[in-house]
């Protein structure tokens, strides 16, 4: 047990790729504890790579890439401007609202920061918003990207916890929207206090309808993808495949902004991203298998139960572990490492696996915008030229929305379970 955990920690610290850290730790365990089982290594690796469900992973990535390349960002910003642009701090509100919608299309916080940030950070700075505020609100609102369905991390969690993708998509809908609404409220408050400008524009009804029409085809895509999974019309993999077809048709034939010659590069990026995550999944399954044969999750769960601590404290401690892990480890490996260890603990305190999945991903999303390692911070820093510390300072007020929602997810199960129970009995 100590070989397994200590070697993994050392390997991670010295910068060995997470996938191979898991493989090497497992190998050391076999060498020292069960040398007779060592022949099982390649078989477990192969079994870990062999997953029909996970074919959804590159397909969801490609769907987001195609929509993004098809010029969806400007359309969503114009659409959001229509609703909240005239309020004080209009561009800040547009930033949050566009992220809420973009999250449902891309499923990725990093691409949300890159796409929306590239347009709105310079525009907000030109209109008199401080650079810290412009970058901070962009990274903070991008955390919704991986919470609002469809979401790639939800598919990874579904595999790790053997849960229904559809239930997770539905379970994460309200918490994702709640973060967005709280961020809108915070933006209104800050904008009133700091006297941020309103957007001045006048559109006649025809122009408004045109702006709406320009965005509507992108807006219905998440409904289409989630609906097909939830109502059992298609598997997650199939719905992602159809989502790709939809994004391709809309981008090339309707928007006419997606260049066909760019598609091979987008496909390559999607499948290479998937390969990097899949090799972690494959080797983490080996690691998790060892944890299971050593009964580590059960022992940990029993130990915690014997402490006789109130469940509230345990759940709060789990929240803290998730937030801490998110600051150092990327989302997918964190899901794969934390799920087998933490899920049995929270289940023993009555938490549903769907509720825990939403909690885990919402907590890890915060890690993307917290130093020292935050992918969204790095992207925003590249766009704005600000140091990541300053961007984080700008994001802090908005992260209150994430933390409040995290606590609500932890202690109000209905927030995550009501919709799946209503639609997917």
């Amino acid at each position, binding site marked *: 047990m100590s070989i397994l955990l200590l070697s993994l920690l050392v390997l*991670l610290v010295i910068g060995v790729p997470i996938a*191979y850290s898991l493989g090497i730790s497992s190998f050391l365990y076999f060498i020292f504890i069960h040398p007779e089982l060592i022949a099982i290594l390649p078989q477990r690796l192969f079994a870990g790579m062999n997953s029909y469900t*996970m074919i959804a992973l590159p397909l969801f990535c490609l769907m987001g890439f195609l929509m993004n390349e098809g010029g969806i960002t400007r359309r969503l910003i114009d659409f959001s401007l229509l609703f909240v642009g005239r309020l004080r701090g209009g561009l800040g509100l547009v930033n949050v609202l566009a992220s809420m919608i973009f999250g449902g299309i891309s499923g990725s916080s990093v691409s949300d920061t890159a796409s929306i940030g590239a347009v709105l950070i310079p525009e907000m700075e030109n209109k008199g918003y401080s650079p810290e505020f412009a970058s901070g609100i962009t990274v903070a609102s991008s955390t919704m990207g991986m919470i609002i369905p469809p979401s790639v991390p939800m598919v990874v969690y579904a595999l790790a916890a053997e849960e229904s993708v559809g239930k997770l998509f539905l379970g994460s809908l309200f918490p994702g929207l709640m973060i967005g609404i709280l961020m809108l409220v915070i933006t209104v408050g800050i904008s009133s206090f700091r006297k941020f400008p309103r957007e001045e524009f006048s559109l006649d009804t025809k122009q408004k309808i045109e702006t709406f029409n320009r965005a509507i085809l992108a807006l219905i895509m998440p409904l289409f993808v989630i609906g097909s999974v939830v109502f059992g019309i298609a598997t997650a993999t199939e719905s992602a495949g159809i989502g790709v077809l939809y994004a391709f048709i809309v981008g090339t034939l309707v928007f006419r902004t997606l260049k066909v010659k760019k598609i091979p590069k987008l496909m390559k990026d999607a499948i290479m991203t998937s390969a990097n995550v899949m090799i972690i999944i494959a080797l983490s399954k080996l690691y998790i298998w060892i944890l299971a044969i050593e009964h580590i999750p059960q022992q940990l769960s029993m130990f915690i139960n014997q402490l006789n601590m109130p469940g509230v404290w345990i759940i709060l401690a789990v929240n803290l572990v998730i937030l801490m892990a998110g600051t150092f480890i990327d989302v997918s490996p964190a899901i794969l490492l934390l799920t087998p260890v933490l899920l049995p603990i929270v289940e023993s305190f009555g938490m549903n696996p769907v509720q825990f999945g939403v909690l885990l991903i919402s907590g890890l999303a915060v890690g993307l915008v917290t130093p020292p390692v935050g992918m969204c911070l*790095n992207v925003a820093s590249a766009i704005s030229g600000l140091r990541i510390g300053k961007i984080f300072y700008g994001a802090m007020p908005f992260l209150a929305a994430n933390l409040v929602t995290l606590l609500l997810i932890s202690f109000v199960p209905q927030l995550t379970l009501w919709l799946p129970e209503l639609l997917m009995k």
Partner: protein
Amino acid sequence: MKGIVAVEKRISFFLETLVTVFFGLILILTILLVILRYIFNTSIVGGNELMEFLFIYTTALGAAVSLGKRSHIKVTYFVDQLPELPRALVDTFAFFLVLGINLVLLRLSFPWIAKVGDAASPVLRLPSWVAMISVPVGCALAVLYCALDIYKIWCFQDSGRGGEA
């Protein structure tokens, strides 16, 4: 030295193209299977199995290429704090470890395939080794890329950082 880098680039380009083609096939099959099921009430026999086989190859080959591109997800924060020489030493050690585990997997995969590789797959009735062989192929390529990475660190002072976790 430049010759070795050029060869590596060609191998990576070939493998990335192959992986992208496999992904294209997976995508076409996914869409085709849905259309056939809902519009024509039929299916492609073994379609899902073929998709799984192709997906396994994309992972095995893609993970190896990622070593060459240093795009694997890892925690870089601590190593980044080190001065140049200790960092190069730690990077080299890390690549040796990755090379080592891939050699172990390569070595162990042959008896495994010899033992169970003849078993036919459930639908296509293809011998299992057709998919299983992706493991030693991927590991052999990973060994090659690790060796090249170590070579580049010491010959080009190329201590490029990988994907951040």
